[in-house]
């Protein structure tokens, strides 16, 4: 049952992604981007997925991405993916027919490879399914689990994610140890992250954590049973915690990505910052996510939601996270510029690397939001120490025109982020001053009056209840009905519809 729901949502997510048109992303001197270096940090399926994404949003890079994608796809055996590369390129070509050459001039569909691979896939599937059937009839639990798992892996490699997920989740019934459950959860998480169905990640992280707990405790018990000497107990504990840490980083990454996907930027930032050392990611690094990505995600989310001291202590002074920052040098510049109040630099570099951000599959839908959040936070922080400031000066600091700045500021004031007012005629932003004494008086009087009115009403209410003057359901209609039938109600009380005796409008 659970699986069906997931399936539905997945197909929805897919169609949505296909329909939603992305903004076109420029690649030029102002927005430098190296496709080769970027894509070289990935491998496997995500390599192709990312290239397809790039083709759809960035026509200038499409031909190059097209070639790379085809080469990589032919290494695998997913024929649907192979076809979708061609479709993506055709779409890109249809969007910008003048800028890029036609698909057929670069590469043609390799029908021979397609047929061979299809046949091979078919053969393998039959083999695996027969295996599963045999094991099921023999009722060997462990073998059934492995058969399901193999089918899951197989379907995943040929790109049938729904079927793959079905087999992975089925295999859970046949898991005998929590280590198996953990493996299953991790496989499903990989699958979910690949598919970008963020809302389900949380459930599997939770399951994985529970499995992890019991797995470690079971192992501990097993190790201690054959009267192990104290030294070796120490060693096992260390090994256990290392193991735990390894899986934990993966789980952290998964949680973080799911938060990001659901626009919980603050939680995402915290989760990303928690991710352990680089080697903890093992095969996930590259296959699913590049270490540089973690740096970018975390930094953008942190800039958008954290306060300045938080950024300093949790991001810049975080040794663990430093390793990730190394991967993308501009991220450090960005952070330092922000800490040093060089907001113009911050915004410029955000713009400069916007291509890099838009091209990322996970980040793309949130770039606009995050940039807006960072911008408004920067504005708020900039104005904080001032009592009044010329809009002109402020616009220089941010590198905008005065009108643009005014618009931003007005938005922030209306949202209540900045406590100030704009002098439109003289172009000055002035902080609001409140006369505390008068404000206190006003508040006290207002509260007093509200209190008296509330007391009066409550008193009446109490009296009404004491006299049992409570609106009751009409006789013959049980309390279970809940919603009352207005007609029955008025009928019983012998009252006309209230408006009928109010002659006409009073205006």
């Amino acid at each position: 049952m659970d699986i069906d729901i997931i399936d539905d949502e997945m197909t929805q997510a897919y169609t949505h992604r296909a329909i939603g048109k992305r903004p076109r992303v420029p690649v030029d001197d102002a927005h430098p981007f190296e496709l080769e270096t970027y894509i070289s940090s990935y491998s496997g399926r995500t390599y192709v997925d990312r290239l397809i994404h790039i083709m759809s949003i960035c026509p200038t890079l499409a031909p190059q991405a097209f070639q790379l994608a085809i080469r990589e796809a032919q290494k695998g055996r997913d024929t649907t993916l192979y076809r979708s590369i061609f479709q993506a390129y055709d779409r890109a070509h249809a969007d910008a027919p003048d800028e890029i050459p036609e698909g057929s001039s670069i590469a043609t569909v390799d029908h021979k490879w397609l047929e061979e691979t299809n046949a091979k896939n078919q053969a393998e599937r039959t083999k695996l399914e027969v295996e599963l059937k045999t094991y099921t009839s023999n009722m060997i639990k462990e073998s059934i689990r492995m058969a399901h798992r193999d089918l899951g892996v197989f379907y995943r490699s040929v790109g049938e994610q729904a079927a793959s997920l079905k087999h992975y989740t089925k295999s859970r019934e046949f898991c005998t140890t929590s280590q198996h459950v953990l493996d299953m959860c991790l496989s499903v998480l990989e699958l979910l992250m690949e598919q970008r169905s963020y809302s389900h990640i949380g459930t599997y992280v939770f399951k994985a954590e529970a499995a992890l707990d019991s797995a470690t405790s079971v192992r501990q018990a097993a190790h201690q049973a054959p009267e192990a000497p104290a030294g070796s107990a120490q060693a096992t504990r260390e090994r256990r915690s290392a193991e735990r840490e390894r899986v934990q980083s993966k789980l952290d990454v998964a949680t973080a990505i799911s938060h990001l996907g659901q626009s919980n930027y603050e939680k995402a930032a915290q989760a990303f910052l928690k991710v352990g050392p680089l080697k903890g990611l093992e095969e996930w690094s590259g296959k699913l996510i590049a270490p540089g990505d973690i740096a970018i995600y975390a930094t953008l989310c942190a800039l958008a939601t954290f306060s300045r001291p938080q950024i300093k202590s949790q991001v810049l002074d975080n040794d663990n996270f430093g390793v990730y920052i190394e991967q993308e040098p501009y991220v450090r510049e960005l952070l330092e510029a922000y800490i040093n109040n060089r907001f113009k630099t911050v915004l410029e570099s955000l713009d400069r690397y916007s291509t890099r951000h838009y091209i990322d599959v996970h980040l793309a839908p949130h770039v606009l939001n995050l940039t807006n959040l960072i911008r408004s936070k920067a504005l708020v922080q900039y104005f904080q120490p001032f009592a009044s400031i010329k809009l002109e000066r402020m616009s220089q600091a941010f590198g905008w025109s005065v009108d643009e700045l005014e618009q931003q500021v007005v938005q922030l004031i209306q949202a209540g982020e900045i406590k100030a007012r704009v002098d439109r005629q003289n172009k000055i932003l002035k902080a609001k001053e409140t006369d505390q004494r008068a404000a206190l008086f006003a508040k006290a009087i207002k509260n007093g009056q509200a209190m008296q009115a509330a007391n009066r009403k409550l008193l009446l209410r109490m009296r009404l209840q004491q006299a049992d003057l409570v609106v009751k359901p009409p006789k013959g209609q049980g309390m279970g009905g809940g919603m009352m039938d207005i007609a029955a109600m008025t009928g019983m009380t012998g009252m006309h519809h209230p408006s009928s005796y109010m002659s006409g409008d009073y205006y």
Partner: protein
Amino acid sequence: MSAAGASGHGLPSLDDVFTQITTNPNVANVASYLKTFAPREVRETILASALGSGQDPLTVLDPHRNTLGYLYILSARLHSISTANPVANAILPDAIEAFASKFNPPQARLAADRVTLLGKGIVRFYEAAHNPRGAIAPLSNLVQRYPPNLSYLTTLHPIFLRLCVTQRYFAAALPVLSHPITSVDPSLSDLHYNDNLVYHYAGGIALGSLKRWQQAEEFFEICVSAPAQVPAAIQLEAFKKLVLVQLIQYGETIAPPKYTLPALQRQLKNTPYNNFVKAYPAEVSTLRQIVAKEQEIFNQEKNLGLINQAIDRAPVWLIKKLTATYLTLGLADIGKEVGINSPEEVREIILSMIDSGEINGSISQDGTVTFADPVPQFSKDQLDKMLVDAQEHSRLLNEIERHLNASKEYLTKVCLIRFCRCMMSLC
């Protein structure tokens, strides 16, 4: 019609009743006598008849001294109005007038049901005489004199208010409306929950028509938040009016008290009013579009007047919002933000807002509006009054608490708990 037939069956005639009324010094006895002297249906006929001497009893009795008898006879007469002859009817307006201004309240309270009957009778009588407004004056007298003080709710209240509203004579209700209801005494009159709902609903309408928004809001709110197990239709109607009044008054809606029925709030969400409230305050043209879509419903529910007033107020709220964002603005800029094209119109609105003290600002020669922070001013008198009010209030609350502490139910419960504790400590 006459008493002759009645005496043959051993039933008292009106003359017997009359002697009882005039001679028995004990009012309570008279009350119980009047209640029981004959079977129900016969009683009314006897009371509505004339004396054996052919005299009209109402001319003979004194409304102050013989309040009870007068009340019984008058209400019976008003009740059987169609059967009485026109000569007898002719004196009724005077009798009503005389009774309403002279009756003895404590005596009348002994026959609460007759007072309700009388109130309804008066309304019906004047309606039959094609002069429904005539009922307002005597009813007003009755309503104000009957309860021990004006904080009590009686069955007369909804009758009176309903009359004022249907006759569109709202000002007449003000003396009654200006006293908030805080007490309810079932022994004073046999109240039904609808009496409370109708009184506050109609009161809200009257106050709203007089543009006393704040009081109107309170009345509607009381109606909406009245204790209920299921929502009543009238409460939903009151709720619709409440949100509109709040829009006029504050430019936004205020959440109803926590004890309001959740079902009621859900029901309001399903009405077209919800859309209007959500969009408010917006440019006048946008609001008009929304209203035009649901025109029929608004019109049918007689709320179009309130909605139009709310729309007229929309620019005021938009301008007020601007004062929070800007220090100075050109008239044209304001016009653009509010959606009004002519600067003159904007100037007018702003001037009226400054006049009424809603915003603090000034318009310079070149059409620049400078907004200043509103400066709350409090005089010493104002503060003193506030303090006196607060003291009065706390005295009232103290009194209620003492009452509660002395009440039988409370004491029984406390004693029971003490007793239980005692027993437990012994065990």
